[in-house]
């Protein structure tokens, strides 16, 4: 990770995770890190240089699940995904859309809204 300035951050997934880019557990570690950065940074560049992930579990857990906790606009404004393979970018977008669909369904019921509120407060 290289700090560019106080409000910008660069996360190199390969340097950070090595070959641990397969399971949900691996993805959760990355998401927890991004959630900390989202609190203090305006712009976070997530760099996939020299990396092919091809794991729905990892991509869902690390990035798509952010849709259940943060507004889409905030994530879109703050996160920049660079140097992704075409395959991984397609996977990311597909999983993000699935999580947005899930959030929309949850928002329709009191129980669902309660579950989302818990996620947001974690």
């Amino acid at each position, binding site marked *: 990770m290289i700090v560019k300035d106080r409000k910008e951050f660069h996360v190199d997934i390969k340097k950070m995770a090595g*070959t641990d*880019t*397969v*399971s*949900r557990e691996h993805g959760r570690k990355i998401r927890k890190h991004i959630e900390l950065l989202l609190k203090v940074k305006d712009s976070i560049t997530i760099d996939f240089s020299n990396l*092919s992930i*091809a*794991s*729905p*579990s990892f991509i*869902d*857990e690390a990035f798509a*699940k952010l849709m*259940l906790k943060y507004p*889409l606009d905030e994530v*879109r404004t703050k*996160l920049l*995904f660079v140097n992704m*393979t*075409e*395959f*991984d*970018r*397609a*996977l*990311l*977008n*597909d*999983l*993000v*859309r*699935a999580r947005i669909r*899930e959030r929309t369904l949850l928002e329709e019921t009191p129980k669902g809204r309660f579950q989302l509120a818990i996620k947001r407060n974690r």
Partner: protein
Amino acid sequence: MNHYRQCYFNRTAVIKYVPPENKKLKDYLSQIGFNKFFHLNGTDIHKDTSVELMQLTALNPLYIENLIILIDSKMRLSQGVKDSLKMSLQEILTNVFDHSKSENGCFVCAQYYPSRMTIRLCITDFGVGILSNLKKKYGISTDIAAIKLSVKEGVTSRPQSAGFGLSIIRSFLKMNEGTLSIISGKGKINFYSNKVESYNMTKGFEGTAANLKINANKESYYSLTEEEYIF
């Protein structure tokens, strides 16, 4: 009358099976290393177009990479097929280690047919099966129902939301005109690109087996969403 034969792993009996009478099938088991792996003092004749049976006790990214490099060296796969192959293997193995509770991990083997440009992958575990994982959460009681449910988006045994892997593999194979076959307990389902066939087997399989047939000559890149990208 069926004559069962015991399979051993690490000198412990793991499963019983009926040895095939068909010579082709017998030879095939030999080619992939079945006898060497599961029979005491068994030997095999390995054939170049098969990837020998391998036991994995943990997610092993290096094995996955090497398996793809090996198949690629024989068939010159497109990047899209390589990525899809990697995704399928990683996701099924993640499921095995997250949900199967298999004491022996799982067994992976592969076969490739350069002339037909087809790859077959098989991942098997002797774990608790799909129904055991899903019945409580989803109130289902048959292996067939559990297998059908397991390939739907968002279905998982976890308390948290998850469960996209098998649905994505199913969608990819649909586009690829390939096949996903899942055997678990007494259920077997073949998911083809244009139809689904379900079978109730009289003899159950204690565990889960996933068999994938991928067409390596189809440039079916993973691109399920036709909508504009968000990121």
